[in-house]
Structure formats: structure tokens, C-alpha cells
């Protein structure tokens, strides 16, 4: 007599569970925890920078150490915080949104995460080698010939970038395979949630961009140690070639850092507007055209290198064109809110802040595209303000929106809404106080990547530093909030949010489909 017995048994716990897990939820958690940890590492570097810039003169760093901080801050925030956070979201959400049991390539999923801690250990260890020249100090863009002069830190950085690249490529292939191969029957491409769409396109971009970065840093390495002259004018090479190669990777990279954010926002806004997303199709097309255009605008990072006029004009027009699909997205989000029934829980607050502040970054980006004006903005704090508006008040704010949005689903508990609102408002005050005055600093003549400045820049720098410390320390509230939600609290319902729709919400687990059946003939 056969029976189905239901009983509890112990699941693997402790370190081995996390080391060998192939489960998408576990790996998603690992990515997110890693990202949060690195957020504080990169944030500490930012605060060292802001502390140094609180006053003119050199107070707490020397210029060489300062340059290491600004370089590592960028590398950590880009490759250690924003990208892993989005991969973490993808791991958690893609299978749930698609009705799949897991990611398509679970074992590889485990590898692509575990490469990261090693890569960053390697990268950050350079800070402790000050006698050998310390960490990379030539900026995250690693322009030669300056990068050729760097110490051993540059070589460690190149190696760790290779590791991060492998991790990203494996992750991207996994995402594509999951989305295309694991969709539940009936989940056609044009029914996929927008978060899935933006990740699919992001993964395509990653696969196109990563070999370019790997090649670029390898050529730096061989120029440094193996006698090649790719970027050495004296040996017949071309230092500007590196910039072309780097930004051919770099511009798609900035969309890799923002498209998943668009996806998150496109999930959050309809939920709290209690109204379907406006213009789903045009959202998908806009995302695809942004991705396409991202391949032909790279040289807008190098308008001052002395390109032929025709080249400058081409890259100016192409860059300006990106404003059109980006505008479509913003209009669609606002149209989604229009005549909805809005409520303002923390995820929605972050999403609204994203739309407003990202637009500021987008508009300053449009200004930067105008070549003659760019000659004044290039390499100044105006640019610093621009990309922090895009990446911090853009990508990071979207990550917070997503984290608050899905945290109840992941932990089974509601987070502390009051604490969430405190976190939101302190973050808003801090980040805007930090980054908004930088526009003025840049226009007034302060160049970027300097540890010291002329006296007329003092006031705005002090605002920025005060803002940065408010921003930095208020992130501790988020850590407290997450720990609280993991440990307990009000139980979340399956749907969590009143207006939530999609496979991941409507059922406590994805709906069953006919994954087993009785076949007509046996052997």
C-alpha cells in the first residue's frame, strides 16, 4: 500500500548551503547581500573623498591615495553594487515572473556569483599595497598612457576586471536562456513583464560589450609588460584608440546599469497607480531602440580629443536621438499614474523620485550631447553631477524601489513602513544635497578628479560633503529595516500590494502547468 507522506527534513544549512546552492532564490540573495555590502565599501570611499573635499587644502589624503579612492569608488559601485544588485533581482524575479522552476543553468549561476567575491578581494587588496604603488589611481576609465604608469594595482585591477567580465557574461547567458527557454506556456514574449524585457535586452548588451572590455584591458596589460604598442604613440600606437574601445564598451555599460532600473520602475508604478502600465508595446520598443542606439554614441565621452567635425556631428546627433525613446518612457510612466488611484508606500516614493531625478540626469545628459557646450562641461563636476544623477538617483534609487517592492515577497514579512519612509526622505535630502550643487561647481570651473580646489568652490563643496554624510549614514536604516523584515514582522499576503499583478504575486507560487502528463503510447 503506497502513501504520500509529507514530513519535514533538514535542508542543508550553514556555509555549504550558500557555497553550493544552485537555487535561484539563494543565489539571488547572495547577489543582493554582496551588493549591499559593497555599497558600504564603495560608500566609505565616497565619504573619504567628500571628507577631503570639505575644505580646500589637503587634510586627510595625499593626492595619490585620493586618486586610488576615486578609481576604486567607481569600480566598486559599478561592478560591485549596481550590476550585482540587478543580477540579484533577476535571479529572484525572472523565474517567478515567467512561471519557471529555476534559472535555465543553475550550476553556472552558482559559479557566476562566486567569482565576484574573489574578483573584489583581488581588487581591494591593492589598497593594502601602498608600498608597491597602491590601488589603481588612473580613474576607472584607465586611460593610457596614465594607466601604463600605474603600479601593481593596475595589473590586479585588470585581472579582477577579467573575472567580473566572465561572471557577467555567464550571468547574461543564463538570463537569456531562462527568458527564452523557461517561459510557462502562454507567456508569450509580448506578455512578459517589462522587468523581464529590460533584462533580456540588458543581457544582449552585456554579451556584446564584455569582450570589448576584456580586450581593452588585456591590451593595456600587454602594453605594460609585454612590449606591445597598441596605445603608445612613440611605438606607433594610438592612445585615443583605447578611449574608442573603452567607450564602445562603456556606453552600452551605462545602459546595462539603467535598463533593469527602467524595468523595476515599470513594475512598481502600475502597482501603486492601480492601473495597467501605459504603452507596454512602446516601452518595449523604446528599450530596444535605446539599446540599439547605445552602440553608436560612444564617442560623446570624448568630444575634446580632437575628432573630425563630421565625427563630432554624427555622435552629437545620435546621442540627442536617445532622448526620444527615453522621453517616451518617462511620458508613459506619467501616463500610467494619470487618473490612477495613487498611494505612496515606500516603493512608490522611490519610483516617483526615480522618474523625477533620473529626468534631471537625462536632461543634463542631453546638454552634454551638445558638442560646443560639452567643451565647457567635459571633465568637470557638471559631468560628475550628471552621472551621479543617472546612477545614484537613478539606478540606486530604482534598486531601493525594487527592494522595498519585493522584500515582502522574499521574506514573507512586511517591512517597517515608517522606517522605510525615514530612509526615503533622508536619502532624498542627502543625495540631492550632495549632487545638485555639483552642477554649479562644474559650470563655475571646477574640474573633476582633484583632491583640492580653489577657494570660490568652497561653499558648494561643503554642502555636497554634508549631504554625502547624511546620505551615507541614512543607509544604515535600510540595513536595520532589512534585518527586521528577515527576522519577522507582519506576515505578507501572497499578493502583498493591493494593485500588484503578475505571476509572482497572484499565487503564492507560480501557477502549475502541465509539466507532466500521461503519454499516449509507452515504448
Amino acid at each position: 500500500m503506497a502513501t504520500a507522506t509529507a514530513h519535514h527534513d533538514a535542508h542543508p544549512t550553514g556555509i555549504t548551503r550558500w557555497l553550493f546552492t544552485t537555487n535561484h532564490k539563494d543565489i539571488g540573495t547572495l547577489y543582493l547581500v554582496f551588493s549591499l555590502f559593497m555599497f558600504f565599501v564603495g560608500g566609505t570611499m565616497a565619504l573619504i573623498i567628500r571628507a577631503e573635499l570639505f575644505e580646500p587644502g589637503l587634510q586627510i589624503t595625499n593626492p595619490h591615495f585620493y586618486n586610488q579612492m576615486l578609481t576604486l569608488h567607481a569600480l566598486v559601485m559599478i561592478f560591485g553594487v549596481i550590476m550585482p544588485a540587478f543580477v540579484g533581482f533577476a535571479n529572484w524575479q525572472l523565474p517567478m515572473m515567467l512561471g519557471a522552476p529555476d534559472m535555465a543553468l543553475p550550476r553556472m549561476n552558482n559559479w557566476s556569483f562566486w567569482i565576484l567575491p574573489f574578483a573584489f578581494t583581488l581588487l581591494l587588496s591593492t589598497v593594502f599595497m601602498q608600498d608597491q604603488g597602491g590601488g589603481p589611481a588612473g580613474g576607472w576609465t584607465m586611460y593610457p598612457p596614465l594607466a601604463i604608469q600605474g603600479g601593481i594595482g593596475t595589473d590586479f585591477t585588470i585581472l579582477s576586471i577579467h573575472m567580473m567580465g566572465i561572471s557577467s557574461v555567464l550571468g547574461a547567458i543564463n538570463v537569456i536562456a531562462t527568458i527564452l527557454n523557461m517561459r510557462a506556456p502562454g507567456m508569450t514574449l509580448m506578455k512578459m513583464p517589462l522587468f523581464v524585457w529590460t533584462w533580456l535586452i540588458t543581457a544582449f548588451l552585456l554579451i556584446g560589450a564584455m569582450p570589448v572590455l576584456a580586450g581593452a584591458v588585456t591590451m593595456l596589460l600587454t602594453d605594460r609588460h609585454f612590449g606591445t604598442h597598441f596605445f603608445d604613440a612613440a611605438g606607433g600606437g594610438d592612445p585615443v584608440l583605447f578611449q574608442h574601445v573603452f567607450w564602445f564598451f562603456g556606453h552600452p555599460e551605462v545602459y546595462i546599469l539603467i535598463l533593469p532600473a527602467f524595468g523595476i520602475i515599470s513594475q512598481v508604478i502600475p502597482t501603486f497607480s492601480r492601473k495597467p502600465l501605459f504603452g507596454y508595446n512602446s516601452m518595449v520598443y523604446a528599450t530596444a531602440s535605446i539599446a540599439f542606439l547605445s552602440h553608436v554614441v560612444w564617442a560623446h565621452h570624448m568630444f575634446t580629443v580632437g575628432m573630425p567635425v563630421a565625427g563630432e556631428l554624427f555622435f552629437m546627433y545620435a546621442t540627442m536621438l536617445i532622448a526620444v525613446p527615453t522621453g517616451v518612457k518617462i511620458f508613459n510612466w506619467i501616463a500610467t499614474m494619470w487618473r490612477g488611484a495613487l498611494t505612496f508606500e515606500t516603493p512608490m516614493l522611490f519610483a516617483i523620485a526615480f522618474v523625477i531625478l533620473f529626468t534631471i540626469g537625462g536632461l543634463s545628459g542631453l546638454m552634454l550631447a551638445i558638442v560646443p557646450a560639452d567643451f565647457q562641461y567635459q571633465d568637470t563636476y557638471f559631468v560628475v553631477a550628471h552621472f551621479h544623477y543617472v546612477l545614484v538617483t537613478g539606478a540606486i534609487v530604482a534598486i531601493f524601489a525594487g527592494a522595498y517592492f519585493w522584500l515582502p515577497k522574499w521574506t514573507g514579512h512586511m517591512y517597517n513602513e515608517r522606517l522605510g519612509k525615514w530612509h526615503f526622505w533622508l536619502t532624498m535630502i542627502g543625495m540631492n544635497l550632495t549632487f545638485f550643487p555639483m552642477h554649479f561647481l562644474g559650470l563655475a570651473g571646477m574640474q573633476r578628479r582633484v583632491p583640492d580646489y580653489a577657494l570660490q568652490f568652497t561653499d558648494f563643496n561643503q554642502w555636497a560633503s554634508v549631504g554625502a554624510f547624511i546620505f551615507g549614514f541614512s543607509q544604515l536604516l535600510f540595513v536595520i529595516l532589512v534585518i527586521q523584515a528577515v527576522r519577522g514582522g507582519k506576515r505578507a499576503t501572497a499578493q502583498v500590494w493591493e494593485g500588484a499583478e503578475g505571476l509572482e504575486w497572484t499565487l503564492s507560487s507560480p501557477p502549475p502547468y502541465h509539466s507532466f502528463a500521461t503519454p499516449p503510447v509507452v515504448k
Partner: protein
Amino acid sequence: MCVVRSQSRRGVLSRLISGITLAAVPVLAAADYQLNLPPPVSYIARRILDLHNLIFIICVVIFVIVFGFMFYAMVVHRKSRGHKPATFHDNMTFEVVWTVIPFLILVGMAIPSTATLIEMTDVSKADMTVKITGYQWKWKYDYPDQDLSFFSSLSTPRDQIEGKAQKGEYYLHEVDNPVVLPVGKKVRFLMTGNDVIHSWWVPQLGIKTDAIPGFINETWTNIDQPGVYRGVCAELCGKDHGFMPIVVNAVSQEEFDKWVVAQKQKASSDAASAGKTWTRDELMAKGKQVFQTCAACHGPNGEGIGPFPKLAGSKIATGPLKDHLNIVLHGKPGTAMQAFGTQMNDVDLAAVITYERNSFGNKTGDVVQPAQVKAAR
């Protein structure tokens, strides 16, 4: 708009409060803080400022209109006010409209931008040429027509940077030898780099051009009012990137001519002093001055900074004089140690090498004469 320096330190709190007021009353703010590009002093800089103001205003207007709708929705279409959600999720007309209108605005912005860009790149019919070379971390100016050449580096004393002395008015924006240009003349600039990429930026002239080793970039200006215009290196070029300012002294043609003559006299008197034999004390005194350049990397007491080697007791500074001369004159490829033979005259080099070999505990007793340097070149 004027630039006001904060000689008197206000408290952080009062700064915060003034900041909030500033955000609220932008007109007032303009009196206190520089919020826009500095006043242009050339045709191109003026065109850029106009363009910047135009696109900025367009962006602000777009922002206000778009988010006006959003804020209206946030106030009126709230669930807490009992608003019931609509169900629409598509509207072809609107979607076409908000694709086409931005496109047209962009075309409107592209036209003046293109025109300005074409003017900026027209370097033909220049009255004179100045070649600018970026070094780690100073600028070299060559006037081929006037047969002049000199280096220009930061003149702010180390003590001010390290907080041991009161900071002067032009802290970090002052140099020993400003570049002098005549007003009302079309000056063509040729930019290149000696070691790494630098970028020559003077906001009031509307010029920012990268100085790239192995390449020559061209740009031009025509300054319309005499004055002193300050700028900086804009491209990260290593440790002292923040310490290589630019000062442009725009003067009338007569004053410019006088300056050229004076520069030439100075050059010939320098040449004369290179011929004489210097005493050890003279060399040590001068060497101490010149060593400020070296101290940026090797430390004020030759103790080295991070990756930059120390000189105190080092093999180079205490070993054979020939090696010491060689590395100072020709640099060390692949490192930040440059060929100072192209940057300093024989007297300075002789003095600084003498100084290095007899300071920080180094006791070689060597006295190096300018003639020896000349011979070693």
C-alpha cells in the same frame, strides 16, 4: 555674475540654511554664488554661453511641463481622495505626439549647435600660433613666431596646500609664468602632451582641448578684452592633476610686444649665468628652490611618497654622478620620472643635482657645474 570667495568661514548650519534659502530664491542666490558659466571673453565663449543658456532653458521648460502633469496626478488622482483608477493603457495619438514633439525640439537644438561647432573648428587665418604641451604637472608654452619657450607651473606654496599658511586669493589658480596673449588677434593653439593626456581648459575663452602625446590638436581664440583668465588641466593626468593651473594674461598688442622683448632678454641672461662657475653654496641655495618640483613626488625631505622612490640614501643620489645626471636628464621610461633635460636649464639642473647629492643625509660632496650638465646632455 561675480565670484565671491569665502574668506570668512561660516558655520555648516548657516551654510545649510543659506542653501535652502538659495534654492528658494534663485535671483538672490546669483549675487552670492556663481551658478553659471563664467563671463565669456571671446566670441566662441559667448556663442557657447548663449547655446548653453538656450538648451538649459528648454530643458527647464520641458521639466516643468512634464512634471506639472505628474504633480497634478499625485495631488488629484490619489486613492486617499477616493479617486477611482481609470483602465486605459494605450493611446496612439498621445504616443505619436510625444515621440514627434521631442524630436522636433531636438532638431531645433541641433541647428545652432552645428553652426557653433563649425565655427569653433575653423582655425584658418590665424595671426599667431602658440604651441601648448602638457607635462606631469605643468604646461609648456612655445611661441614659434616669436621664438620663445617657457614652462608654467603652480606657484601656490606647499604650505598653503598643507594648511600651514593662510590661503591666498588665487589659491591653486596661480602660476609662475602666465601665458601672455594679445587681445583682438586670432591665436591658433597647437596642443600636445609630453607624457600622458592632459586637457587645457580656460572657461572664459571657451576652450577645452585634450593634449595627447603623439598627437597635435588645433583650436583657436580671439580674446576681446584685456584681463587675467584662469583655467586648469581637465583630464586626470596623475598625482598632481589638481595642481597644474593655467593663467592667461590677455594684453594689448604693444604690451605683448614689450613682454616678448623682456622674455628674450631674460633668456639671454640665463644663458650667460650658465657659463660661469658656481660656488657650492650658491648651487645648494638654488637647488633647494628647484627641488620643489621634485618634492612633489620624492617628498620634501627626499623620503619618497608611495610608489615614488626616496632619494635619501638612494643608489642614484649617492652612487656615480653619471647615472644621476642621466636619469634626471633623460627620465625613466614607463614611469612618472620625466626627462627633465627638456624642461630645465643647465643651471637649475646642476643646482638641483648638487642639492640632492648633499642633502637628506646624502654626503657625496659632489658639486655639479652647469657646464657638466651641458656636456652630459
